[in-house]
């Protein structure tokens, strides 16, 4: 299992999509840093808010990386090749999902470190670092970790849907349709169901203050557990389907 897991990690980090997108994000962060440096005096105390403000990018990337890590394999037919080396399908899908989810977590943390580092340089050279004490560091770290956790949870959701649909586009399409259509319909027609919407729970978990989401009537931890449960359910369904369905690609 460890060799399979190591191989899946290697595959994930060798993927062109991951490398190119990560490079583009880093480039974007650097360009943003230069613009901030040139146009304003940045206050580093607002870093947790920056992490929150950019969280949607990392969450979408998490979904994309999770979905494409398995969707691309179905598209290329490499699942067949892999199963002729490791026919225990549960092991295969667990290794793939673990590699995708853990890698998305690590990648999100690393990209946020780059973001924090660039803004720290801005603040140190032409802004303010006032108020960046231990409490600030703890808050920034907590927000950054929550963003990384939500990203990897959504990576799991994307992985699960792409595995069931055997297609990256299916996962992206379902995600888009769910967030844009289903959630808005529920909010408008069945507001009482809002506590079960993914974006509501993700918002609560990221912001970390139940007072901002009074209609959910749950704690930050409960929102995180709910999101994790949805992702786990999808992954279990994907694994169950992968175990029994014919591989004909």
């Amino acid at each position, binding site marked *: 299992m460890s*060799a*399979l897991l*190591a*191989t899946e990690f*290697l*595959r994930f980090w*060798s*993927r*062109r999509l991951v490398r190119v997108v990560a490079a583009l994000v880093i480039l974007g962060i650097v360009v943003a840093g230069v613009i901030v440096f040139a146009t304003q005096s940045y206050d580093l105390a607002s870093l947790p808010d920056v992490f929150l403000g950019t969280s949607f990018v990392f969450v979408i990337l998490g979904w994309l990386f999770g979905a494409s890590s398995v969707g691309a394999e179905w598209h*290329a*037919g*490499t*699942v*067949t*090749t*892999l*199963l*002729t*080396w*490791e*026919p*225990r*399908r549960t092991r295969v899908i667990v290794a793939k999902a673990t590699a995708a989810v853990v890698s998305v977590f690590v990648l999100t943390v690393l990209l946020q470190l780059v973001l924090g580092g660039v803004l720290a340089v801005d603040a140190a050279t032409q802004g303010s670092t006032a108020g960046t004490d231990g409490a600030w560091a703890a808050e920034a770290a907590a927000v950054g970790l929550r963003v990384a956790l939500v990203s990897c949870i959504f990576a799991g959701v994307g992985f699960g849907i792409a595995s069931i649909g055997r297609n990256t586009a299916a996962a992206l399409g379902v995600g888009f349709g769910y967030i844009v259509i289903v959630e808005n319909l529920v909010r408008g027609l069945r507001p009482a169901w809002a506590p079960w919407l993914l974006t509501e729970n993700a918002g609560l978990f990221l912001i970390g203050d139940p007072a901002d989401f009074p209609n959910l009537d749950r704690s930050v931890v409960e929102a995180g557990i709910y999101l994790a449960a949805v992702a786990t359910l999808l992954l279990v369904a994907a694994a169950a389907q992968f175990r*029994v369905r*014919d*591989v*004909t*690609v």
Partner: protein
Amino acid sequence: MPATVRERNGEPKVLTTMAVIETEGLRKEYRRARRGKTVALDGLDLSVPEGGVFGFLGPNGAGKTTTIRCLLGLIRPSSGRCALLGSQRHVEIAGVIGRVGSIVETPALYPRFSGRRNLELLGRIAGIGRSRVAEVLHQVGLADRADDLVKTYSLGMRQRLGIGAALLKDPELLILDEPANGLDPAGIVEVRDLIRRLGGEGRTVFVSSHILSEVQQTADRVAILSRGRAVAAGPVDEVLSAGRVAGMIAKVDDMPAGLRALQEAGIRAEATDGLLHVELPPGEAAHVTRTLADRGLYLTELRPDAVDLETVFLELTAPPPGTEAASMRGADAAPTHGTET
């Protein structure tokens, strides 16, 4: 029970009469919403003995790839059973997969990784090191292009890389699905030689193909598949001669006298196209020679009336008369019974 001894990696290997691949009543149906039921395998019985090259022949849609996918646990049979090196269930396949190398249809590898990287990634799963990867790349003639991205490879090079991946485990049993696909004539000869060599080393090479001349040149035994069933199986010579009178072609200067001499000696023969078709097995050539020579007739030609695999194949896999496929065959139509998956 020991049957044969062959050399493998310099070590003598005792081959037994054990079947390395067995199927019994293997049936696979696909049900699709719009197209209804498609029968890909219709009660296939097959037994592949250990050692040598086994050719698995059939037209497109006969069920060759479906059989291979069943054997490798990629698809579940609707009924019947199949066994690979004695394993019968999916969980048991994991125990023998390390002894089986395979390619299924066009080898699917990561196009944006190099050939070497692809093999290293697969090898890591089975604990195979880089030196073995380098050895295999050399063996399949890709050492010079090993570090190029697979997406820059030709179809033939991808096919060779797929064969390399199958060889990586140094397997006892190789399952190759149309290994000559996309190869140029030189590549086909290389693969043919490789298959012969591997089969001669004591491994079992199970080759599915529709290139009949290739199979005839490499295989010790064949099975011919038609509409999901094996319509012939056994040693190549037996399959070629099955159901027909073994004979010889003879030629003498005075054909009427030659025909008369043979018939008077009780040998069934007929003269067509300037040749005598003698209904005696090639093993009795001396009898023909002596009979004609006793009458002062001397042979200018005597050879077995050989039937090639293509003829047998076309006879055995021809659709039943009156079916749509039969009426379309003249236009090179594919059989409509099954769908190669």
